[in-house]
C-alpha cells in the first residue's frame, strides 16, 4: 500500500513530466505504443507454446526451472508466472502494493523526471517484487523474464528488490520480444535495496527486436558492507536503448561492480552508462564497459564516479573496438571528486582489432573470420569471479551463447 500523500505526489510529479523528453537518447513518441495485457495463462513455464519457450531459452531462462530458486515471467504488462522454491519472497509488484506499505521503496531511488518514468507512474505497469529475508543466502539463481508479446506494445515495468540484512540473492534477468514482434517500447523502473552485509548479483541479458525502444531507469542503494554486482549484456540489434543507472554506495565499506557488454549491430542506437555515488567511507566501485561498434550502430558509453566521502576508491574502465566505418563509438568517462583524500581513476580506449593478433591466430590455423570472432569474444569477456561458481558457469554459458550468434 502507498500512503495517500505518496500516491498524490507521484501522480503530481508524473503529470508534470508527462511530455518531457529525456536528456539522452532519441525522443520517442509514446502514443505509438499501446498498453496491453496478456491473455496467456500458465501453471508452469513448460506450458508456454514453443515459440515463447525458445525465445526464453535464447536469453538463458531455464524452462524446466532446474537449478533455479524461482522464476518470474511478465508478458506485456501482466505477470503471467511467479513462483519461488526457496525462502525468498517474490510476487508481482501489484500484489506487493496491496500487501505491504511500500512508501519507502516505491519511487524512492528512481526519480520521475522524464516522459518514460512519468508513463510508468501514470499508466498500468507491473513488475517483480523480491524480498530476501534477513540472513537468507540463496546462491542458486532466481530467473526473471520480461517479454513483449504483442506488436507495438508499451511494456511498463516496475521492479523492487530488497535484500535484508545479511541476505544474498543472485538474479538472471532476460528481456526479449516474441519472435513475431518487431516494434515495441520497454520502460523499466528498477529499485534495489541492499541492506547491511547484504549481497545482490544481477545479470541481465537483453535480446530485443530491431524496432524496439528500451528505456530502463534504475537506482540501487547499498548499506554498510553491502555488495552489488551488475552484469549487463546486449549483442543483438535494437532500435534504441538509453539507460544510466545510479548506484549509491551509501554505507561504510559498500562495494559496487558494474560490467557492461555491448555489441552494436545494425542501426542500433545504444546509450549506456553507469553512475556510482560513493558517499560511504571506504566504499568502492568498479565500472567496466566493453563495446564493439559494428554495422551502422551508434554507441555512447558513459560512466561517472562521484566521490563524496574520504577514503573511497573508484575505477572506471571503458574500452571499445570499432569495426565498421559506418558506426560510431563515443566514450564519456567522468570523475567527480568532492573530498581531498580519495582515489578515483579512469581509462578509456577505442581501437580496432590489432593486425598482429589476427596474424598470430591465423598462423595457428584459424581463418580470418574465426580469428576475428575469437578476439571479439575475448574482448567482450567479463570477470565473473564475484559470482557463485554455478551461477558464473551459467552466466558464462549464456554469454557464450549470445556471442555465438554474432
Amino acid at each position, binding site marked *: 500500500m502507498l500512503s495517500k500523500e505518496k500516491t498524490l505526489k507521484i501522480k503530481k510529479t508524473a503529470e508534470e513530466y508527462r511530455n518531457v523528453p529525456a536528456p539522452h537518447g532519441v525522443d520517442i513518441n509514446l502514443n505509438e505504443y499501446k498498453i496491453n495485457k496478456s491473455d496467456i495463462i500458465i501453471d508452469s513455464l513448460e506450458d508456454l507454446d514453443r515459440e515463447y519457450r525458445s525465445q526464453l531459452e535464447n536469453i538463458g531462462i531455464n524452462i524446466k526451472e532446474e537449478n533455479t530458486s524461482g522464476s518470474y515471467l511478465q508478458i506485456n504488462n501482466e505477470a503471467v508466472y511467479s513462483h519461488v522454491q526457496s525462502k525468498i519472497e517474490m510476487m508481482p509488484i501489484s500484489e506487493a502494493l496491496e500487501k505491504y506499505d511500500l512508501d519507502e521503496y516505491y519511487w524512492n531511488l528512481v526519480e520521475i523526471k522524464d516522459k518514460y518514468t512519468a508513463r510508468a507512474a501514470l499508466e498500468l505497469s507491473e513488475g517483480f517484487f523480491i524480498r530476501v529475508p534477513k540472513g537468507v543466502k540463496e546462491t542458486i539463481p532466481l530467473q526473471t523474464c520480461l517479454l513483449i508479446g504483442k506488436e507495438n506494445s508499451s511494456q511498463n515495468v516496475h521492479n523492487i528488490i530488497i535484500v535484508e540484512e545479511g541476505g544474498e540473492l543472485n538474479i538472471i534477468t532476460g528481456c526479449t520480444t516474441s519472435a513475431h514482434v518487431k516494434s515495441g517500447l520497454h520502460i523499466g523502473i528498477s529499485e534495489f535495496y541492499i541492506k547491511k552485509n547484504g549481497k545482490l548479483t544481477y545479470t541481465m541479458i537483453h535480446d530485443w527486436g530491431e524496432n524496439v525502444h528500451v528505456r530502463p531507469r534504475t537506482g540501487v542503494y547499498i548499506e554498510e558492507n553491502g555488495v552489488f554486482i551488475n552484469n549487463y549484456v546486449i549483442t543483438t540489434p535494437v532500435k534504441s536503448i538509453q539507460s544510466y543507472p545510479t548506484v549509491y554506495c551509501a554505507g561504510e565499506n559498500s562495494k559496487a561492480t558494474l560490467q557492461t557488454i555491448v555489441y552494436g549491430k545494425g542501426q542500433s542506437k545504444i546509450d549506456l552508462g553507469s553512475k556510482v555515488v560513493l558517499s560511504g567511507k571506504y566504499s568502492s566501485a568498479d565500472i567496466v564497459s566493453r563495446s564493439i561498434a559494428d554495422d551502422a550502430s551508434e554507441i555512447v558509453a558513459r560512466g561517472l564516479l562521484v566521490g563524496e566521502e574520504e577514503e573511497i576508491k573508484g575505477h572506471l574502465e571503458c574500452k571499445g573496438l570499432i569495426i565498421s566505418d559506418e558506426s560510431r563509438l563515443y566514450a564519456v568517462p567522468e570523475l567527480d571528486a568532492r573530498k581531498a583524500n580519495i582515489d578515483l581513476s579512469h581509462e578509456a580506449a577505442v581501437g580496432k582489432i*590489432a593486425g*598482429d*593478433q589476427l*596474424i*598470430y*591466430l*591465423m*598462423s*595457428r*590455423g*584459424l*581463418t*580470418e573470420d*574465426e580469428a576475428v570472432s*575469437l*578476439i571479439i*569474444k*575475448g*574482448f*567482450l*569477456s567479463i570477470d565473473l569471479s564475484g559470482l557463485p561458481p554455478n551461477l558464473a558457469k551459467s552466466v558464462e554459458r549464456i554469454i557464450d551463447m549470445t556471442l555465438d550468434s554474432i
Partner: protein
Amino acid sequence: MLTIENLSVKVEDKLLLKNINLNIDTGEIHVLFGPNGAGKSTLINTILGNPKYKVVEGSIYFKGKDIIDMPIYERAKLGIGISYQSPPSIPGVKLKDLLKIISKVDWESIEKMAETLHFKDFLERDVNVGFSGGEVKRSELLQLFAQNPDFIMFDEPDSGVDVENVKLIGTIINDILLEKTKKPADRKKSGLIITHMGHILDFTNVDRAHVLYNGIISCSGSPDEILNTIIRYGYERCIACYQKKKH
C-alpha cells in the same frame, strides 16, 4: 620439406631479401644466424605468409606445393608452425580455450606437456597477458605441441630466458617438437631456428647453419664452425663473404 628458390621480398618499398635459396629436408634442423636487421624475421614472416611481406621474385615450395599464394591459415593447416619471439596477447581468451581450438592431439597429452613445461597454472590465464619472457616461450611451445606442425620456425626461442629454462626449451624443441631422438628414418619433422646467442644450440642437434647478412644468405655450413667464427670474429667475417656473394 621446404625449398626456397631465388626469393626476393619487399616490405613497402624496401627490398629486404635478395635471391634467397634454402632447402630444408625432412628430419633436419637448420639454424639461421645474422645481425639485427639482416632479414631473419622477414624470411620467417615470408614463409609464414604474413601479407605485409611481398614476394617480388622466386618460389617457396612446402611438401612439394608452391605456397606463395596461400593465405597464412592454409599454410598453417598444411603443416607450417611458428614460435614467435614476442607474440601479442589476446585478452579474454584463455590459453586452454585456444589450445582446444588449434589442437590436433588429445587433451591429456597437452596437459602432460603443460606439466613438463611447468605451465599447467597458465592454462586458465589469458593468452600471453602478463607473461614474462620465459613464460611466453613456454606458451608458444605448448601451442605448437597442440598444433603439431611438420615444419616449425623458432624466432629467438632463447632470448630473455634463464639458463635452466633454455635447457628445458631446447630439449623440448629437439626431442619432442622436432623428433630428433627418433631414428633418422622415423623423423617426420623439420625446423628452422633463429638465434642470436646460440645458447639453444647446446641442447639441439642442428644439421646446418646459415648466415643472413643484409638480405643475402652469405654463408652456409656446419653449425659449430659458423657459430665459433661468429663468436670469435663477430659478423665482420661474414661481410667479406657477403661482398663476394653480392657480385
